[in-house]
């Protein structure tokens, strides 16, 4: 059995109402796990709990590796160039392997000219790539990504999905990708958990390793049909 690098046990969290009712999940080393669910079901809250950014919740999170986060918003410092933003974590860690960080940026498709530009002057897609490159630059063992493909145009989304999946697998980085759109994850993840509407639980889990695209689509369709009949649309 593969080593579990991140595990959540019985997570419960509410604000004015209960959002996460009882969530348990695990991430294996080198695995890419997708979390999908309807809007407002608490996906971002769950990700923040896994990242250690959210206080006051019930349950337990066990982590056995360094962590990088890609937030839903790009959160690039607007007064720094993309290059400075990407190297920010390295600066804090006192590391000088800037070239390695910039390689991630180039692999994701950021041009040299864009690297020297301020975030305001580049496209939304390039900003998103820079946010991902910034998280990858520290070469974390786990990376958590909140809706990394949302709001991108089709061609940017397709190329980013493919280059990101290649990078993660090549480097053996374990990842959790949260999305409200199944198609975001179909070609990228090894396993997928589907959250129910709030108060959320894990409604279904699907191992997609070794499946072709058509098989993945059919398997997910079956899972969703089952969930709709159990929990409503």
């Amino acid at each position, binding site marked *: 059995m593969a080593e579990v690098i991140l595990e959540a046990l019985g997570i419960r969290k509410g604000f004015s109402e209960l959002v996460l009712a009882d969530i348990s999940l695990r991430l294996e080393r080198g695995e890419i796990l997708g979390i999908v669910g309807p809007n407002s079901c608490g996906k971002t809250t769950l990700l923040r709990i896994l*990242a250690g*950014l959210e206080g006051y919740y019930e349950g337990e999170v066990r982590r056995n590796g360094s962590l*990088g*986060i890609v*937030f839903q*918003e790009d*959160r690039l*410092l*607007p*007064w*720094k160039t993309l290059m400075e933003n990407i190297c*920010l*974590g390295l600066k*804090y*860690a006192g590391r000088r392997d800037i070239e390695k960080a910039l390689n991630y940026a180039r692999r994701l498709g950021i041009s040299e000219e864009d690297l020297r530009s*301020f975030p*305001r002057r580049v496209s939304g897609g390039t900003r998103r790539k820079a946010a991902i490159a*910034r998280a990858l630059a*520290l070469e974390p063992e786990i990376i958590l990504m909140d809706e990394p493909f949302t709001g991108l145009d089709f061609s940017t989304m397709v190329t980013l999905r493919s280059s990101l999946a290649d990078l993660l697998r090549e480097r053996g980085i374990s990842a959790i990708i949260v999305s409200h759109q199944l198609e975001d994850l179909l070609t990228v993840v090894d396993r997928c958990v589907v959250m129910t509407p709030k108060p959320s639980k894990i409604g279904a889990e699907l191992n997609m390793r070794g499946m072709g695209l058509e098989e993945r689509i059919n398997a997910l369709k079956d899972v969703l049909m089952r969930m709709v009949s159990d929990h409503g649309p």
Partner: protein
Amino acid sequence: MIKIGALSSFILLLLLWEAISLPGLLPSPLSTLRYIASLDPDLIALHTVITLYNSFAGFSLSMLLSLALGFLSHRNEFIRGFSMGICSIFNSTSALIWSLVLVSTIGILSPLPPILVASAVSLPQLLSATIAALDSVDKNLIEAVRSLGGSSANEYLDVIIPGSLPMIIAASRVALGLSLRISVVAEAFGSSGGIGYMIMRSYNLADAPGVLAWSLILIALVLALDRLLLMPVEERSSSWLK
């Protein structure tokens, strides 16, 4: 188009001044310029330097206080309330009152009243702008820096200070201009030098061209300072916004 609009306002004011001077109510623009040309350049330089010194010293004092109180207010609710109180009180007190109170308590021979008046008048502008600028910093960016392993010092150096700087510098531009205009009021009431002192001296001697000439020198000084120093600094601090 903006430049033409700005130039038009200058021309309009000049024409109005010329019109008022025709019945002899005021010396004309030309006679005022002739008066300035007749002044000893060393005298102009001396009193300009005194006024600049008073306003810069007053502005620097209020800037230091604003930054200290602003950053402390960002971390402590009591100091925030205290700073808000200071802003309200100082905002409600006119430059005339500060001038009279400070001249009568510190004395006419002291160089302090013009400096303190400039400081008292610019303090609420700078302090409220500093507090608002710090409040407006995006908390998500602070969280992003933390998630990358940044320390509290990194949060200040990489997010809070650069994020609040454009707003503080824009307020400084207004506050420095205000300090310059207000320090001359204190100079007029209780000082032995400066443009304000020269305006009051000319007025007491019924020297109308002198009043206008020194006033014009003050206006030119404020404009030059704004265009040559403050505007470029403001533009530089917010270059990433463009």
